[in-house]
């Protein structure tokens, strides 16, 4: 028999994993995933209590949380994409320039390894005929 306690244990474990991940990782996407995990742990709690009380209040909340989390993911990933384009990095410590004026930067004891940047594929702007490379034969369909 799976009791309320089991649900709460799973949720607490999920929340703990998310918290630790959020505090220890510096990759923006992973941090975001960890934050989502904490959020969903709360969701499990709500569902569990809804079942325990025998009503649907908690479930309604969870519906909202899922919807909001989806929006959040869209916005957050778009922001990360822009940040990546600017700095070619997803390291959250790279954006420490938003600190208070006059505060010295925190020294980074353990910099992330850098990887060679490969050029992103570029599409021609809308309405412009793409340039065909001279040595490449046009595809025949």
């Amino acid at each position, binding site marked *: 028999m799976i009791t309320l306690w089991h649900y709460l244990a799973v949720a607490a474990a999920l929340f703990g994993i998310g918290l630790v991940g959020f*505090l*220890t990782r510096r990759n923006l996407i992973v941090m975001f995933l960890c934050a989502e995990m904490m959020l969903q742990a709360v969701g499990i709690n709500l569902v569990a209590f809804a079942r325990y009380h025998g009503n649907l209040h908690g479930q309604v909340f969870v519906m909202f949380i899922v919807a909001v989390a989806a929006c959040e993911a869209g916005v957050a990933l778009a922001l990360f994409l822009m940040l990546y384009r600017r700095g070619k990095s997803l390291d*959250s410590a790279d954006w*420490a320039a*938003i*600190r*208070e004026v006059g*505060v010295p*930067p*925190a020294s980074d004891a353990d910099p992330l390894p850098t990887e060679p940047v490969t050029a992103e594929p570029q599409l021609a702007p809308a309405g412009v005929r793409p340039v065909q490379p001279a040595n490449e034969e046009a595809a025949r369909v």
Partner: protein
Amino acid sequence: MSDPISRALVVLVLPLAAAVLAALFSRGVLRKAANWPLVAACAAAAGLAVGLVARVAEAPKHQFVSDAVTWFAAGQFSANFTVNVDPLSAMMLAMVTFIATWIALFSSGYMHGDRGYGRFFAVMSLFVFSMCGLVLANNFLLLVAFWEGVGLCSYLLVGYYFEKPSAAAAARKAFLVTRLGDVGLILGIFMLWRLTGFATTDLVSTDPARPGVFALITKSVAADPARMTELTIALLCLFCGAVGKSAQFPLYVWLPDAMEGPTPVSALIHAATMVTAGVYLLARCAPLFAICSDAQVVVAWIGGITALLAAFIALAQTDLKRVLAYSTVSQLGFMFLALGTAGAISPAFAVTAAMFHLFTHAFFKALLFLSAGSVMHAMGGVIDVRQFGGLRKLMPVTHVTFLCGAAALAGVPLLSGFWSKDLVLESLAAAGESDRPYTGAYFVLLLVAFATAFLTAFYTFRAYFLTFWGAERVPEEAGHHAHESPLIMTVPLMVLAVGAVFVGAAVEPFNHLFSHFLEKSPTLAQASAAAGAKDVPHAFNWTIAGLSTLFALAGVGLAFALYRRGGPEKVPAALEPAFALSRNKLYVEDAYEAAVVKPATALAFLAKAFDGLIDGLARLVSAVPRFVGQWARPIQNGLVQFYALSMVLGLAVFLTFVVFRVTR
């Protein structure tokens, strides 16, 4: 547009549209074309206004008042937006727009290549709009609004070269000194309203059931002679405003300094139009002034003192534009002299004399200023007669036009200035022989006017000879500019020169077109009826004319004897004390400096010290949060993990606290 009111409103709106257009042009690709809205608007307005004069002349009633549109209302009191078209305002409207057209054309060339080309024309258009509004206003509130509008434009244009400290100071001085007079104007208006019992704000009305301010006050004073004192005080307050705006003694000091502005501005605002607003105000309020002889004698005395004083100061000035500025002050004094006789003689005659002098003065003084501007343009911005001379050959057109203007100003017979000055002198002479009080004063003022006429002829031709006669001298600043100005500048000069020479003779002495037209103004008829003074016949007075010719020619002759060899100026030893006095402007400015400016500066210094004290206290208070901030600031180090960790720790502490509190 057949209706005179809508025609007048179109004249009013055209320059406003030009102001908007010029402002829009000032930063775009049309930057170089910012002059055309003003030129076109003024030309169209001038055409309409001249047509308006003809229409008003042939209309059966000679007065048109627009339907009242409530501007704002508070309780019983409501201020209306109404315009009034009568011969007086139609004449002013035509004069202002006509002169403005040629000055706009001249400034197109004069200001060419200037950085603020668009700004200049936008403000000039706004000025023409305000001036037209001032002329048309049929309501003291509206009049004050436009009165301040022209004052604002004057401030903006005097300070046009605002990078120059002297120009900025001159603009400030012009604004503050006229403001001093405006306080009087506002007080006077309130007192006049009180006399009407706050029944209406419209000056005149065509509806007999709702009489205007003039009719109400005339009736109220006639009913209760004790109110005359109140009316006198109110009119003197009103006159204060005119003194400030029209640069009369003791508030004339701003006008010579206002020459820091570009020369077309001096021609339009500080010679032809804005400074005559005070004269126009008194002419418009003639029904009130005519019944108040105590106020009138003050007006005449102020005019006489100013005329003589300014003419004397103009004697030894070396800045060509300043000579002209002082002469403007002096000629405005002449207009007030004529206005001051209204009541002692028929107001219709006195006001016509003043307005006729205003009319011809606008032509020849605008011409003189524009010619001086042409000289200044050629001399690379130098306007000091000690630094150039003998420009006769170099600038033949400017030479001839300046001569026309100077001769008209000096009152050389048969030119415009001669005829109008003659009317002023005639009105003074008639007032000296009238059956009213203060005849002695008017007789003394007649002598003052003759002395002024002599001085005027002398200083005008002194400036002329020093500039154009003798050996040719050109300052270094002139560079390659030292040649005659382009056509766009000389054509307005020629047109205005024709005006300065012929316009006086064309409209008044032989056919009395001008005076018959103005005398049709219902307000002047009302003033004449109220004053009941004897009419002055429109007959040519040979004694007056002969004496004035004698004085004018004596002045010109003396100038010729002293200066025909041109500069540098050599003052005869006998005249040296007088010249020294004149050069120092009769120490009037020094007296003001000691009596007003120095105490004000000291007060400002004290206020600044006190302000420093308050500032110190405020800084002390603000230092406390800054200190706390200094201590807490390192927490904001920009690392997301650090923020998250502090959040978690804070939450942990909070939860621990809650849990242990609850379980205990």
